[in-house]
C-alpha cells in the first residue's frame, strides 16, 4: 500500500480523535445543577413522581438543544417524605453538599415556606412548584429569591367562590385538612363567597388532619348539620379515601352533588384511582388534563404537542396532570437564566420578575410585585364520556387567575 495514503489516513484519524476530544471538552462543561426537593413517597408520592418526571422532560428537551448558556442542566432530586422538617434537611444538604445553583420543588404548603427560608439564607433562587399557601409570598415572608409557579390559595379559593355563587343553595359546609393550605384556601373562599352571596350561611366546618385515613366520622358529623352544598380542600392524595367513604355514606347524593373539590380533586390521578366510584356531577379542579381542548388555536397546538410528548415520556395515553407543574417551573428557571445571561441568583431573580413564558397552556407571567405566576387552573364537572376508561371533567375550562389577583 502507498505510504502517503497511510500517512493521510493516520492524519485523518488523529484529526478525528482531536475532534472527539474537542467536543467532549465542550460537553465536559460543568452542568447547571438544580436541587429538586419533592414528595416521592407516601400518599403524595403519586403526584411528586410525575412532577419530577415533567421537570426532567423539560430538562431533556433543553439539553437536546445544547442546554442554556452552553451548559447542560442537571436535576438533583431528593425525597421530602411529605414532611417540612425533611424538606428543610434535604434542601440544606442540596445547597451545602451538592452545591446546587438553584432550588426548584416542594409540594405541600408545609414544605414550601420551610424551604423558602433556606433559599433566603443561601441566597439561591427557589421556585415553588406546588405549594399554594398565601403565606409563602406574604409581605413579611417574601424575599428576592422565592418565586411561585403554582396557583395560590387566594386565586383558587376565589375561583371556587365564583362557581359556588351561581348555585341555588343557602346552607354551605366546608371540609379541609388542618394545615396551612386547607386553612388558607378555606379562608379565602369563605371571605369571597360572603361578598358574592351574603345570603349563604356556613353551617359546618370540619378540619380532619392531613393524611387522615378515616373520614367517616367527619362525614356523618357534617351530614348531621344538613348542608345543601360542600366546599372541600381534601388534597394531597387523600381525596380517594374521602370520596370512597363519603360515597358509602350517601354524602354526595344527599347534597345533590353540590360539591366543589379543590386541591386537584379533579386530577387525572384522582379520577383514574377512583374510576367508577368517582362522584359524578361534582365540581373539581386540576392543573392539566390531556383531554382539555383550549379555544385559542395557538394554545391548542402547544397543548396537543405537549400532551403527545408527555404520553411518550410516560408510555401512557392518559398521562398524569401534575407533570406540567414540573415542566413549567423548569421553564421559568431556564428562561430566567437565559434572560439574565448568568447563573448568579441575584441576576436570575431580577430576570424572573415580570418574565413571561409561553407554556403548554399559553402565556404565564411571573408577576414582579409578588413573585407569583399568573397560573390558572382547570375547573369542571365530573362526567362519564365515551372513549375514556374513567370519568373526566366535562365541561372543563381554564379560569383566568388575574381576575382574582390583587
Amino acid at each position, binding site marked *: 500500500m502507498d505510504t502517503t495514503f497511510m500517512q493521510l489516513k493516520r492524519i485523518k484519524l488523529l484529526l478525528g480523535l482531536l475532534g472527539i476530544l474537542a467536543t467532549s471538552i465542550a460537553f465536559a462543561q460543568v452542568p447547571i445543577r438544580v436541587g429538586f426537593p419533592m414528595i416521592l*413517597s407516601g400518599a403524595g408520592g403519586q403526584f411528586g413522581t410525575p412532577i419530577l418526571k415533567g421537570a426532567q422532560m423539560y430538562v431533556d428537551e433543553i439539553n437536546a438543544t445544547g442546554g442554556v448558556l452552553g451548559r447542560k442542566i442537571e436535576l438533583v432530586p431528593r425525597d421530602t417524605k411529605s414532611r417540612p422538617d425533611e424538606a428543610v434537611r434535604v434542601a440544606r444538604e442540596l445547597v451545602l453538599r451538592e452545591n446546587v445553583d438553584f432550588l426548584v420543588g416542594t409540594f405541600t404548603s408545609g414544605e414550601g415556606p420551610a424551604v423558602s427560608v433556606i433559599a433566603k439564607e443561601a441566597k439561591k433562587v427557589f421556585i415553588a412548584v406546588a405549594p399554594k399557601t398565601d403565606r409563602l409570598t406574604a409581605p413579611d415572608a417574601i424575599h428576592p429569591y422565592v418565586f411561585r409557579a403554582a396557583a395560590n390559595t387566594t386565586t383558587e379559593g376565589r375561583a371556587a367562590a365564583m362557581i359556588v355563587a351561581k348555585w341555588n343553595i343557602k346552607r354551605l359546609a366546608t371540609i379541609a385538612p388542618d394545615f396551612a393550605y386547607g386553612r388558607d384556601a378555606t379562608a379565602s373562599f369563605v371571605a369571597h363567597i360572603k361578598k358574592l352571596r351574603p345570603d349563604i350561611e356556613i353551617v359546618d366546618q370540619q378540619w380532619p388532619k392531613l393524611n387522615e385515613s378515616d373520614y367517616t366520622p367527619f362525614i*356523618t358529623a357534617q351530614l348531621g348539620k344538613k348542608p345543601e352544598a360542600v366546599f372541600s380542600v381534601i388534597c394531597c392524595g387523600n381525596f380517594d379515601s374521602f370520596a370512597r367513604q363519603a360515597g358509602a355514606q350517601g354524602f354526595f347524593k344527599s347534597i345533590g352533588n353540590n360539591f366543589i373539590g379543590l386541591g386537584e380533586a379533579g386530577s387525572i390521578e384522582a379520577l383514574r384511582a377512583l374510576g367508577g366510584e368517582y362522584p359524578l356531577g361534582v365540581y373539581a379542579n386540576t392543573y392539566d388534563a390531556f383531554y382539555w381542548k383550549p379555544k385559542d388555536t395557538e394554545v391548542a397546538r402547544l397543548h396537543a404537542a405537549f400532551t403527545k410528548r408527555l404520553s411518550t415520556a410516560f408510555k401512557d395515553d392518559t398521562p398524569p396532570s401534575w407533570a406540567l407543574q414540573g415542566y413549567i417551573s423548569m421553564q421559568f428557571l431556564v428562561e430566567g437564566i437565559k434572560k439574565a445571561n448568568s447563573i448568579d441568583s441575584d441576576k436570575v431573580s431580577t430576570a424572573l420578575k415580570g418574565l413571561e413564558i409561553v407554556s403548554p397552556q399559553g402565556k404565564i407571567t411571573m408577576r414582579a410585585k409578588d413573585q407569583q405566576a399568573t397560573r390558572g387552573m382547570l375547573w369542571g364537572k365530573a362526567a362519564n364520556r365515551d372513549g375514556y376508561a374513567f370519568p373526566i371533567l366535562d365541561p372543563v375550562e381554564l379560569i383566568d387567575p388575574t381576575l382574582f389577583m390583587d
Partner: protein
Amino acid sequence: MELPSLSAIGAQAVSGLTTAMLLFLVASGLSLIFGVLRLLNFAHGSFYMLGAYFAWQFNTWLQGSFWLSVLLAAIATGVLGALLERVLFRKFYDRPELMQLLFTYSIVLIVSDVVKYIWGTQQLGVRRPEILSHTFQFGELALPSYNLMIIVISLVIAVGIWLLLQGTRLGKTVRAAAFDREMLSMLGVDVRMLYLLVFSAGCFLAGLAGALVAPMSAIVPGMDADIIISLFIIVVIGGLGSFWGTFLGSIIYGMVFSFGILFIPQFSLFAVALIMAVILIVKPEGLLGRENTR
C-alpha cells in the same frame, strides 16, 4: 350551638364503631403478640398495610372476586408473618424493649420500601362488592351496609378469639404462655411452635383488617405509619396484652374520636390523646391490664 338530631348521633355512633372494630382487629393481634411473646412489635401496622396490598393484588388477579381476595390476603399476610417470625422476629424475643423497637422499626422501613418497589407510589383502590354498596335508610339515618358488615365480622371474630382462648386446650396453652413460659416448656409444650402460631395469627388479623379496609380507603404507602400510632394509643388505654382491654380501648378510641368530631371538631384527636395521657399517669398498666406484666 344547635344540638345534633338523634339520627345524626346514631350515624356518628356507627361510624365510631366501624373505626373501633377495624382498629380492634389490628390491635388485638398486637396485644396478643405482646402478651404471649413479650415482643413490642412496631411493625404490626406494616402487616395491616400488606393485607390491603395483597387484597388489591388478589382482587386484580381474580378479577373482582372480593371475598376470596380478602380471605387470601389475610392468609398470605399470616403466612408471610410466620416466615418472618422464623427468620427474624424469633431472635428478638428476649431482648430489651428498646432493641425490639429499633429492630421492628427497621422492618417498618424495609416493608414500606419493598411495597413501593412492587406496587409503586400510585394509590390503588378496590371496589366494594355490589351487594355491600347500598345504604340502609332508617328515616334520616343512613347506614352503609359495608360498615355494618365490618362491625359484624369484627364482633364475630372478637367472640371467636375469646371462646378459643377460654374454651380450648390451645387457648389455655396460649394463656399459660403469657403467664409463665419457662414452666410451660418444662411441661413439654413446644413453645417455639406456639409462638409461631400466635405471631402468624396476629399477622392474619392485621392482614384481614387491611383487606377489609381496602374498599373504604385508598391503598397507599404510609398506611402503616398512620395506623400504628392509633394502635399504641388503644393498647395503652386498654392495657397491653389484655384481650378485653384492647377491645375496650378500641371502642373508647373510636367513640371519643367520632363524637369529638361531632361536638368539638377542633379537639377530637386531642381528646383521644388526653385520655391516653391521663391513663398513663393514673393507671399505667391500662384499664384492664395486669400490673407488673413481667
